């Protein structure tokens, strides 16, 4: 089975570039150039050196002993939460900012939901001295004030998206509209494995450092680069694609993606796209998305803003359809309890997004020797407000 992209820009039935003609030259330029630029030695040198000295990679692979004891398996955490800016998002923005520079772009735009990708983009723009405009839903701007402040401190302009539901999907629309109106000097740094081809492939390439390191680290820890299970949370799905990337062809490694069920898959307040979605087109690619019978995109819900997206990346849609990855649904409550559990057992406060992957442990049965890797995609600092309210701290 082929899990990778084909030369038309599709993963099986999913992907492609469903974009208005105005975006065609930009997308075409990227499609023609990105692999060439990434393969250049000076790109690789700068990418690796920034990941090491600026981001702090490799991120540790940590054997969580007390958690392992509780669930009767060997549980390793891939510590993306220890990256500069607190999540995996920066792996992608570092890659794209170097690419943008090599394409001669002077201005960077990005969308953000919870603000993590916005912060990661503002960060690399400050690092490179490039103009930075971040689109963020008006509703999210109010919910995520500290991240808005971070972006502003680093010199980014934060523009409220006031259309539609005023959240992540609308911020993405606004960023695309900006790009349509500024086609020559601007690069759009998409934050997840979504959007028109080649974005999903490019973002997963930059995130694939997660599984590349994990394999090496597993050999050091266990002598075998193939674990029994790999788990990651899925909103658009960028940390999951990075975590799965180098395991896709290891068919004996079970891959599990945890989606946000919100208040429950059938509650009407959920973001469990693989269960609730149907095939269609969202933000430039053919994928699975939550929508009405008439094809209007519906508003997802999750307590974690980073999983609050009505679609999944096209490669996830493919991996779901061919059953290479098992997608599971985790409710708000399950994720919140898992956050508390990791905090108490290991002294690590996870992002609520990442806690969705942790929460799946409770639903599985392990053999003692099973090796389990969980992508701890981000840290929980940004979620303190939510934790305080939820647990009455």
């Amino acid at each position, binding site marked *: 089975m082929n899990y990778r992209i084909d030369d*038309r820009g599709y993963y099986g039935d999913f992907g*492609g*570039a*469903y*974009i*208005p*003609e*105005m975006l*065609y*030259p930009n997308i075409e330029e990227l499609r023609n150039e990105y692999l060439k630029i990434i393969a250049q030695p000076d790109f690789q040198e700068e990418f690796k050196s920034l990941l090491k000295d600026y981001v702090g990679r490799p991120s540790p692979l940590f054997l969580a002993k007390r958690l392992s004891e509780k669930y009767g398996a060997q549980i390793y955490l891939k510590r993306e939460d220890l990256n500069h800016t607190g999540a995996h998002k920066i792996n992608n923005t570092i890659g794209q900012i170097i690419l943008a520079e090599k394409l001669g772009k002077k201005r960077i735009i990005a969308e953000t939901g919870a603000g993590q990708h916005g912060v990661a983009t503002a960060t690399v723009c400050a690092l490179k001295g490039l103009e930075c405009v971040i689109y963020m839903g008006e509703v999210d701007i109010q919910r995520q004030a500290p991240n808005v402040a971070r972006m502003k401190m680093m010199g980014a302009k934060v523009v409220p998206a006031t*259309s*539609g539901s005023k959240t992540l*999907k*609308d911020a993405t*629309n606004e960023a*695309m*509209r900006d790009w*349509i*109106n500024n*086609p*020559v000097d601007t690069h759009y740094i998409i934050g997840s494995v979504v959007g028109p081809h080649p974005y999903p492939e490019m973002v997963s390439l930059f995130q694939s450092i997660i599984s590349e390191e994990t394999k090496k680290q597993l050999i050091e820890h266990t002598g075998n680069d193939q674990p029994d299970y790999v788990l990651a949370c899925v909103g658009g799905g960028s940390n999951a694609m990075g975590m799965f990337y180098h395991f896709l062809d290891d068919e004996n490694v079970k891959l599990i993606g945890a989606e946000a069920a919100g208040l429950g898959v059938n509650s009407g307040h959920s973001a469990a796209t693989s269960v609730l979605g*149907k*095939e*269609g*087109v*969202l*933000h*430039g690619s053919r994928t699975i*998305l939550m*929508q009405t*019978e*008439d*094809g*209007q*995109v519906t508003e997802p819900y999750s307590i974690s803003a980073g999983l609050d997206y009505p679609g999944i990346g096209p490669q996830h849609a493919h991996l779901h359809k061919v059953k290479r990855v098992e997608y599971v649904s985790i409710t708000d409550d399950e994720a919140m309890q898992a956050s508390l559990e990791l905090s108490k057992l290991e002294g690590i406060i996870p992002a609520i997004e990442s806690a969705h992957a942790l929460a799946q442990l409770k639903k599985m049965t392990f053999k003692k020797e099973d090796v389990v890797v969980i992508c701890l995609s981000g840290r929980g600092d940004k979620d303190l407000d939510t934790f305080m309210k939820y647990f009455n701290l």
Partner: protein
Amino acid sequence: MNRLKQLFEKKKNNILSIYFTAGYPEIGATLKIAEALEKSGADFLEIGFPYSDPLADGPVIQKSSHVAIENGMTLKVLFEQLKDLRSKISIPVLLMGYANPMIQFGVSNFCKAAKEVGVDGVIVPDLPLYEYEELYKDDFISNRLSNIFLVTPQTSEERIRKIDELSNGFIYLLSSSSTTGKDLNTSDAIGDYYNRVKNMNLKNPLIIGFGISDQKSFERANQYANGAIVGTAFVKTLGNENDYLAQIPEFIRKIRA
């Protein structure tokens, strides 16, 4: 031969097309607006079917889509309304909207339904050339629907030729790379671009759209192309006035003046 081709054979310049969103400002407005436009002298019509995430559109058309969805407009409702289209309207009519609602309806079903009610063509800005050619072309052709492609100042000559080859109605020439509702690009470079396309001697007529809002911009567009499309300015007028139908003759007269 469909009505669009007949129009272009008869009329070579100053062709005026008007875009409006179905179900806006009220659900029952669609055919009433179409009738008023024909009576007022529009040459052909583009009826928008609304989408929740219209990323090529500026705020005015976004809002009209949003209101239309709230009003209950769906493709199913629209095709129901358009059953009376050809007993009332004789000028060419195109449907315009985004790929996702059309895909949910089923592209083949969509094309059949469009043909049945007497629609002449379709504009789907986010349906790419490649997918159209590979997956959907046969549905369009067997239902005698013209599929209209967009061309921008950044579109290469090679791609314009390809678009010309696949087109069978007209080519929708964008006045600039922009979302709908921006002012018309009046730089010198834009004249060069229009002339460049004009001098390619394409088989399809050229209609300029995006940024055409008044008599001046309509006239300028007609120096280079066979006609022009007014969208945002018209939708704005519909939204401004309580008696939206009464404004239509005056709106068209001003553009034609």
